[in-house]
């Protein structure tokens, strides 16, 4: 028996939340001299997601990230950040942070000051700086290293510091260019776990470039494959895993055969 709807109250239509596109690449093409590096690449990066771009060395991943960050002008095409052309915004307005495998720290500052860098530049009150830096240092498990100089840190600790600094700067998009590839296996796994935790805690939107299939599957929420300057995005994790060209099936086959 159906219950009649009350006629006096207006009906609430709940519209499903449409993910907001933070970064958009529109028909990006790029060439160095006569060498074509990117061919007509279009892409949307949605709020809160980690788009993983998998691809072999030299396929154009870093060039794509450099163009997305506004560090390079594409030969043709357009980059939009929050629906506005990247070229029309100053670097500060863009709020894009680029992290790569060599975690770049300010050697003359200690870990605390490295992490507090963006807050100091924004002239935030001292109490707020201490509180927020303390919190983030706890999140990245560096609270005991706050007063250490950057040269006293291991590769993993340096990377954590760079991450913490980037998160406190509250970027619209974080661009990660094989950030963990210089770390040993154990540090790498721990950084991947930390990354997943931070992404959830801080609702980070990021593009994560890697050539490691396992890393891609571990950290990614959406997937794309780059080959010969062309980008193929996948509608789902399943579609990505089933595509022979991604190398996921090879990896699964290898581990199955090894364990037998």
């Amino acid at each position: 028996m159906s219950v009649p709807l009350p006629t006096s109250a207006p009906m609430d239509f709940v519209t499903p939340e449409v993910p907001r596109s933070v970064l958009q690449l529109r028909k990006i093409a790029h060439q160095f001299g006569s060498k074509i590096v990117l061919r007509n690449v279009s892409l949307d990066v949605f709020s809160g997601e980690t788009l993983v771009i998998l691809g072999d060395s030299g396929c154009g991943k870093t060039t794509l990230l450099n163009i997305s960050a506004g560090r390079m002008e594409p030969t043709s095409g357009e980059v939009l950040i929050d629906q506005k052309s990247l070229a029309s915004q100053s670097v500060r307005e863009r709020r894009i942070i680029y992290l790569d495998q060599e975690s770049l720290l300010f050697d003359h500052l200690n870990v605390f000051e490295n992490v507090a860098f963006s807050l100091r530049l924004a002239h935030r009150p001292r109490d707020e700086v201490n509180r927020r830096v303390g919190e983030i240092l706890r999140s990245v498990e560096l609270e005991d290293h706050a007063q250490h100089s950057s040269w006293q840190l291991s590769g993993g600790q340096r990377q954590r510091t760079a991450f913490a600094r980037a998160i406190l700067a509250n970027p619209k998009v974080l661009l990660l260019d094989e950030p963990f590839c210089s770390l040993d296996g154990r540090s790498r796994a721990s950084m991947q776990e930390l990354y997943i935790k931070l992404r959830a805690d801080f609702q980070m939107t990021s593009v994560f470039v890697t050539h490691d299939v396992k890393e891609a599957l571990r950290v990614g929420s959406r997937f794309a494959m780059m080959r010969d300057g062309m980008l193929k995005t996948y509608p789902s994790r399943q579609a990505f895993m089933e595509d022979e060209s991604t190398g996921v099936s090879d990896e699964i086959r290898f581990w199955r055969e090894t364990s037998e």
Partner: protein
Amino acid sequence: MNRLHRFFALLALWTLLAPVGMLVSLSIGSGWSYPRLLPDRIDLLPWRVFFASRDGIVTALLHSTMMSLLVSASSTLLGLVAGRSLRKHASLWLRVIAYIPFGVSPMVIGTCLYDLEVHLGVAGRMMGVLMAQFIFAFGFSTVLFCELWNTRTDRLESLVIELGGSRWSIWRHAIWPYAHRLILVSLLQTALYSWLDYGLISVLGGGNVPSITLTLYSYIREGSVNQAAQSGLVLMLPPVVGFAVSMSLLRPRHDGEKTN
């Protein structure tokens, strides 16, 4: 091996210090004639006479100091800028030009510049000498600072802007911490170059521009042993201080160990 090492160290020290000791004793001794082993009198009277003399030693000192400061400040400042633009828009011929002063004798360049300086009306004047010294010092600074502007400084600059920094923040955090040693070395080296210059001053100054090197040679020519030794010591003082400062600047900053 240790003894041999110590022997050569002492020999080197003796070789360095013996001439200085000789100069000091010549500068404070009077009535020292062959075959006496020691001078008749040892006191500071010759120094008082030296500075009170009307030979223009004070004028020469002031001129040399002023020229050193002007040459070092201008060449370091412009070398910093030129090194950056040379690095950014590297073209082979510009680099070759920067190295020319190292490959040609100052006397040759001085002679080549002479006609030009006569034409400009600066031959035989301090401006003419400064122009010629600047060519050498500027080449040195430019080549020195080329090494500063590398991909790391580029990336640090980008990072500072991405984190919300201004031009001043770029200078303070991305350039100065890495450049200050080179800047000080350049200031010292170019000042010393100008301080010790004899060739350009004698060719282009035409005897009208007093300097401490010219004074020293004139005392040697006329056989004034006391004054020549005193001028030599005055001439040596800045290089010794400069050498000590350079050594302390070039000493590695970190001697701690990494923590893991």
